[in-house]
């Protein structure tokens, strides 16, 4: 009860207080039955019982586990992590060979999981938004096609799409050997820089003649990790450029606000972003390493295995169908008056969409989008179906098989997935808070 109020309320409150003091029962001593019947204590009783039951269950599970392990003569321990893994991994972001430890293999797996999840989230979002918007298109054929797409992908299991994608890639695309010879069946795309083969895509890689070298993190341990200084420099310059460009835009906005005339800034903005980047690339001696057909395979360039492509493709297409539905629902939820108002202001339909409808729809779209991102991350564990070596393939796959440490590997793998999921949802929730309509 607030005390600082004046007026008639106070009177009533005073009366209240008076009444309650009159009917206040005499202090009674605590009886055992009050634990059940008295609402003051009942909640504590229930909580204590729940906690005890939970603890009892934990103890029960742990004792069972220990007895079972003993009866099977198995020992718990993570010592296997420091033993050589003995197997090779094809698609990897960091250097690794079969003599590295199981821990390193698990690390490679985690990075692979993150890689495909990251790529999948980006393409699924782009595809999903495009399809969601097109599904609302006035073009009858396009709208119908998009509906067919959404229904087709939503109603068939993602695992089936993943194996299907791999089958399509490996059955329909040309082999590296088709590129060989004078009258080759297949040829490379984009000025001989990209080779699309059944084994995967070979794309040019960025190389530098005057490279700045790498930072070696964590010395020689299993978690050693190299960060390219060239990349860091590139990113730093790029972000600095983007930041300056944003400042220019802000200034232009301010001038427009004040005078009504907007200064032409596009060339300035392009210059501050592209100029320093180009200078940096020139200074570092940038050139593209092209893939070349050598022996059985292409060499040089960056190689994206068909397993990665299949998984990426299937996850993006599958999740895009869901995101498209979220986007559609979000757009439909924006009141019709908004787009009519935009039309009245003379905005074209494209600008209505990008300036008026989508920004508002975004607030409705983002929460389900978060769970779609989580789904991509979790579904990436289906990589084992196509032989992409993610966390399930390394730690919970071959490592578990070779060492027989099922308990340790599976539990550890689950913990890692849990941490990844929680970080993603934390980051996205933070973003969601920041774009949320600020209500008073």
């Amino acid at each position, binding site marked *: 009860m607030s005390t600082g109020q004046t007026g008639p309320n106070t009177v009533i409150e005073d009366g209240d207080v008076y009444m309650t003091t009159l009917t206040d029962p005499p202090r009674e001593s605590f009886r055992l039955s009050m634990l059940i019947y008295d609402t003051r204590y009942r909640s504590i009783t229930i909580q204590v019982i729940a906690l005890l039951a939970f603890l009892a269950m934990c103890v029960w599970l742990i004792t069972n586990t220990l007895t079972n392990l003993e009866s099977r003569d198995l020992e718990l321990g993570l010592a296997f992590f420091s033993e050589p893994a003995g197997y090779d991994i094809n698609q990897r972001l960091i250097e690794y060979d079969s003599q590295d430890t199981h821990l390193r293999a698990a690390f490679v797996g985690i990075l692979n999981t993150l890689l495909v999840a990251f790529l999948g989230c980006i393409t699924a979002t782009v595809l999903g938004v495009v399809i969601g918007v097109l599904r609302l298109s006035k073009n009858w054929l396009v709208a119908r096609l998009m509906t067919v797409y959404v229904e087709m992908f939503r109603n068939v*299991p993602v695992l*089936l799409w993943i194996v299907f994608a791999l089958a399509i890639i490996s059955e329909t695309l040309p082999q590296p050997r088709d590129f060989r010879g004078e009258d080759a069946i297949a040829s490379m795309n984009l000025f001989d820089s990209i080779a699309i083969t059944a084994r995967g895509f070979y794309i040019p890689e960025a190389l530098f003649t005057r490279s700045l070298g790498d930072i070696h993190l964590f010395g020689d341990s299993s978690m050693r990790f190299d960060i390219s200084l060239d990349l860091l420099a590139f990113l730093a310059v790029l972000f600095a450029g983007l930041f300056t460009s944003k400042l220019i835009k802000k200034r232009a906005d301010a001038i427009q606000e004040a005078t009504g005339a907007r200064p032409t800034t596009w060339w300035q903005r392009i210059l501050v972003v592209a100029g320093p980047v180009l200078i940096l690339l020139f200074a570092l001696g940038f050139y593209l390493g092209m893939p070349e057909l050598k022996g059985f395979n292409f060499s040089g360039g960056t190689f994206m295995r068909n397993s990665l492509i299949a998984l990426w493709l299937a996850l993006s297409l599958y999740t895009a169908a869901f995101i498209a539905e979220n986007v559609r629902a979000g757009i439909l939820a924006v009141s019709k008056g908004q787009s009519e108002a935009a039309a009245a202001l003379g905005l074209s339909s494209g600008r209505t969409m990008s300036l008026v409808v989508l920004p508002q729809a975004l607030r409705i779209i983002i929460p389900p989008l978060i769970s779609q991102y989580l789904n991509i991350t*979790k579904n990436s564990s289906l990589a084992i179906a196509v032989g992409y070596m993610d966390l399930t393939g390394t730690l919970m796959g071959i490592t578990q098989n070779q060492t027989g440490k099922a308990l340790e590997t599976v539990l550890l793998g689950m913990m890692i997935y849990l941490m990844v999921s929680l970080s993603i949802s934390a980051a996205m929730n933070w973003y969601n808070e920041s774009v949320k309509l600020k209500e008073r």
Partner: protein
Amino acid sequence: MSDKISFVRTEMLEQKAPPASTTGFVGWARANLFNGIGNSVLTLLSIYCVYYVLSGLIPWLVSPTWKAESLTQCREMIAAAGKHGHLACWGVVRERFIQLLFGFYPPEGYWRVILALVIVGAGLAPVLFDKAPRKLLIVTALFPFIVPFLLWGGLIWPYVGVLLGFVVGYFVLKYAADALGDLLALIAGVVSAFVWWIFLSGPIMGAIGSVLPIGLEFVESRSFGGLMLALTIGLTAILGSLPLGIVLALGRQSDLLIVKALCVGFIEFIRGVPLITLLFVASTLLNIFLPPSMEFDIIVRVIIMVTLFSAAYMAEVVRGGLAALPKGQYEAADALGLDYWKAQRLIIMPQALKISIPGIVSTFIGVFKDTTLVSVIGLLDPLGLSNAIRADQAWNGIVWELYGLIGVLFFVFCFSMSRYSMYLERKLQTGHK
């Protein structure tokens, strides 16, 4: 009266046909497909896509190989028919279709599976459709006992025993309520049901069974396979997860700190890990966690884990339903003097669940699709079975036919369910506005 010359037309002019360019197909196409350059490009692009897909697909589908006994025969038949290129080999579908549906279930028991499916349908009808006769609710109450009996078989008495446990619990609850009060009666009901299940049901039902051996032939769950396995796992998990999900959702909404923490922890843990890891737990760890006397076979272990998995998602769906309920409903229930459980049972849950049904259906679609993951741990669901079929020498090398067929099977089920969910959403919307 002289003749007046009328300057105003008194009879209506014949209506003219609209310009040819705005009627019929042409007009429709102009309005919907070719209004503007961008749209025209999109339309042409779409037409090309459709043509490209169909021109590849249709010749492949039309393949004279229905009677083939092996892939080699397929190839011979295609060559004999004078066709070239890759064509479908439908012999595998003819030979293995039944297996893809029923797995290794004994053929003389197929009627049991079909009957079970019909009973599930009848049991769910009154929940899903308003127009279904209310009498079907009896089926709803009984099908959780009839369906396992039909699927697994064995003597009928253990199932009756399980059913009677609920009856015992219910009567204790009903008659003890006056004497003991709600909470104690609930506890007494649950305890008496468990006493019945653990100590009394076994011997009593065993005794009846030895006198009256009524039952069906026992079928091991290992014989389950194909689409039937996917349906068994999916349906059991979703029905089992509903009560669990409601409890978790209430726990998450509750003011009790520890209860809330436990529920949130459980939900977030399950939702944070991929289903496949839970299946690994089912296949490799669950029998390390449980005492040796509690051995379940792999399918039941998988069902348990999938149930826990979907319970976490179900809890979130129900929580959504609870949150969507106007606060007035809670306050009205309080104003009527209902206690927490009565308020939940009589006011809150019936409304919240009704709002949640579309969410529940889409959770079910998700779980049903996710049952394909069990092929990774070696269970022979349709996808797992397709690998086993391809290991048969006769069909070694078949790819598209089986994937396509499985895709179509899943599509038929999931699509009809999603249509149902949409119908429901429309119905609910008009009900509220």
